[in-house]
């Protein structure tokens, strides 16, 4: 019996993989998708619309799991969706948190939904300030892909005409809450922008998807699909073509190559049987998320590729970047003391943003290069976190908690680390996962530039809060540890020079023409914007390039 050969194997079903799967299937290619975890059943697995008292540990999770928690999204409501079986290690001195959702759809099941486009200020940052290299893609080139993605997923925002943030096509924005108007007035006084965020949450029905019902529980999963995730928006379209075979619990181990070093398929572990299985195709797309994609490629050692597949440059796993997250300032708004409660939480922290305002006129006007953005948050949330900072007990304490309930505000920074030779991922030859595969080892430290942004943000956010008439309670402290943001980028950067970059400007690896990378690992750095919408735009472009290569006969269609 002849072995089955698919046109394309796609590893991963998150933003990068999901877009590739949908685009390739719709073009008529036969796709085998591998996903390391299971399919989620929204009725069972999404515990949103559950009150804390419906949960055994009130949503706080079993304290015994505290040591193994991998981040703020991995909680009692969603824990069944996050992977805790595959370990990783850190080099001495490195701290790293690595939340991985290996369920079908990956992190798109629970993502934060902020969806700003990269602009030339990001893609040509090196030309502007002299650090590192430009992206091999201009804004004019990628812009139409953003437009198509925005149409597919639905993004609520406004046209803002800012140099740092190209505008797109938007659904009606989220309306400002009391705290937004107050903070906006403070920002106006200080001279920093305060605007509706770009939020991929449907403020009206869009492309067959229902409008949001504003329950505020997006990050525990949406069982009506009112924000973008691949299981609601992309995978059903792929499945409708009948060109998709989705294999779940299939943990990709390595890319298989022939005697010429070209990709022939993928070896994976069936996690149900623990058996290794091989699957074959004419082209392979790696989209397992930044660090896992690097791990798979580095583990794909062969006579041709002794350092990992498509790694003649030695750059696979290098250039890891991440967003520094942290609370730059926190306090409360006395104007709202004792006001009736208000649903301030309907889009978590993505109703408004303070988009990058630094280094716009002159790339060196601050003591750091590039820039950061800030997400304000606050008001009536699920729990009065401020209560432990109040004094006393009894009726006065209880009354003060109620009086303060609508007033808290905080500012969360999103600041890009700079590319560095010392931030990377490699394999730990000493440690293997339960299936015998060497694990990823993280080497990472925040650089001086991003720490200067952090200091800058603490000062500005405290100033904004005071200018808004607020009371600053904290504007110090340390940022979150690396990995917290779930925005890692780099590890397979795209560029024109095969000696310096893993893939070409289309995400096709220089070394192995039928091997593509289609997630944030191809990004040159992480900018001040979130990653998902850009992963979607670049994945769409890579997928169409792959289809074109099939048409040209490069990968010999089935």
């Amino acid at each position, binding site marked *: 019996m002849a072995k089955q050969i698919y046109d394309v194997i796609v590893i991963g079903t998150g933003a990068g993989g999901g877009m590739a799967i949908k685009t390739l299937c719709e073009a008529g290619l036969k796709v085998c998708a591998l996903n390391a975890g299971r399919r989620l059943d929204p*009725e069972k697995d999404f515990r949103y*619309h*559950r*009150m*804390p*008292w*419906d949960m*055994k*540990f*009130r*949503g*706080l999770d*079993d*304290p015994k799991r505290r040591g193994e928690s991998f981040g703020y999204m991995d909680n009692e409501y969603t824990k069944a969706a996050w992977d805790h079986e595959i370990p990783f290690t850190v080099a001495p001195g490195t701290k790293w948190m690595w939340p991985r959702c290996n369920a079908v759809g990956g992190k798109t099941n629970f993502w934060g939904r902020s969806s700003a486009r990269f602009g030339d200020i990001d893609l040509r940052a090196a030309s502007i300030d002299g650090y590192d290299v430009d992206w091999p893609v201009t804004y004019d080139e990628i812009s139409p892909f953003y437009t198509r993605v925005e149409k597919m997923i639905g993004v609520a925002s406004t046209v803002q005409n800012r140099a740092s943030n190209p505008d797109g096509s938007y659904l009606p924005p989220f*309306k*400002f*809450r*009391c705290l937004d*108007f*107050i903070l*906006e*007035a403070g920002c106006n006084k200080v001279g920093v922008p305060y605007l509706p965020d770009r939020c991929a949450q449907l*403020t009206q029905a869009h492309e067959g998807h*229902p*409008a*949001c*019902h*504003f*329950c*505020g*529980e997006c990050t525990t999963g949406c*069982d*009506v699909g009112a924000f973008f995730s691949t299981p609601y928006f992309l995978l059903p379209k792929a499945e409708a073509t009948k060109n998709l075979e989705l294999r779940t619990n299939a943990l990709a181990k390595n890319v298989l190559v022939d005697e010429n070093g070209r990709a022939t398929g993928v070896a994976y572990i069936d996690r149900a049987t623990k058996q290794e299985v091989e699957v074959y195709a004419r082209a392979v797309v790696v989209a397992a998320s930044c660090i896992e994609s690097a791990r798979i490629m580095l583990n794909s050692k062969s006579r041709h590729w002794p350092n990992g597949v498509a790694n003649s440059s030695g750059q696979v796993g290098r250039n890891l970047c991440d967003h520094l997250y942290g609370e730059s300032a926190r306090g409360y*708004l006395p*104007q*709202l003391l*004792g*006001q*009736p*409660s*208000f*649903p301030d939480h*309907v889009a978590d922290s993505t109703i408004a943003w303070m988009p990058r305002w630094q280094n716009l006129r002159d790339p060196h006007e601050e003591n750091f290069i590039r820039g950061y953005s800030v997400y304000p948050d606050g008001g*009536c949330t*699920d*729990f*009065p976190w401020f*209560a*432990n900072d109040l*004094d*006393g*007990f*009894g009726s006065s*304490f*209880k009354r003060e*908690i*109620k009086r303060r*309930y609508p007033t808290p505000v905080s500012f969360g920074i999103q600041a890009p680390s700079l590319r560095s030779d010392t931030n990377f991922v490699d394999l730990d030859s000493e440690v293997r996962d339960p299936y015998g595969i060497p694990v990823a080892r993280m080497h990472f430290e925040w650089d001086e530039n991003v720490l200067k942004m952090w200091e800058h943000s603490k000062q500005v956010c405290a100033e904004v809060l005071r200018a*808004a*008439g607020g009371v600053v309670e904290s504007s110090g402290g340390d940022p979150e540890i690396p990995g917290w943001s779930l925005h890692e980028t780099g590890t397979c950067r795209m560029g024109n020079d095969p000696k310096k970059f893993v893939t070409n400007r289309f995400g096709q690896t220089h070394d192995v023409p039928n091997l593509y990378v289609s997630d944030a690992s191809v990004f040159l750095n992480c900018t001040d914007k979130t990653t998902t919408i850009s992963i979607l735009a670049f994945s769409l472009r890579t997928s169409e390039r792959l289809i074109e290569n099939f048409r040209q006969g490069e990968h010999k269609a089935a």
Partner: protein
Amino acid sequence: MAGQGIQRREVLRILGTAAAAAQFPGFSKWGFACGHVGNAALQVKPATYHPQFFTAAEYATVERLADIIIPNDGTLGAKEAGVAEFIDFMVASDPEPQYGFRTGLTWLNAHAEQKDGKRFAELTPEQQTSLLEPLGFKDKARPGEEDGRRFFSLMREYTVTGFYTSEIGFKELDNPALKFYAESPECPHKGDPEHAHVTPAHS
């Protein structure tokens, strides 16, 4: 409203979780009343709670402390919300705070004996409050009571967590969680963006 789909799902959800909820901490004290489904509200039969971590005497003190921290003073408090059950359950599930609770309760009783010649539980409410004030109010703190302040702060933290994650706690704050809206809710004071003239709703 977001449509029939969600309401139907809500009813199914409530029916599905009510049985499990009956065994969760904090549920022996009060019925599982579901505002969402009106007359279909489900009642869980009150039962006696058997502490898993605390001794009976310790448990009674924890319940009393929670009641003092968040009292029933016109709106329901920690006692009605079953906060002591929650604390016992969480501490039983977690070795980390166990030492702090156990030694803290011992400290409190020794302190009460020293000051008033009786264990904490046997004091009058007035005596209990005056014993706790130096532990709970910063400007009343007394040197030599650092261990007691540390314990009181631990006790207060668990009480706050247990109370404001209960249905009674949600009602106390009119917590807007999990309500549904037809469109994105908007500030009702648009004529006054700086909110300089918002009338206080509570004194």
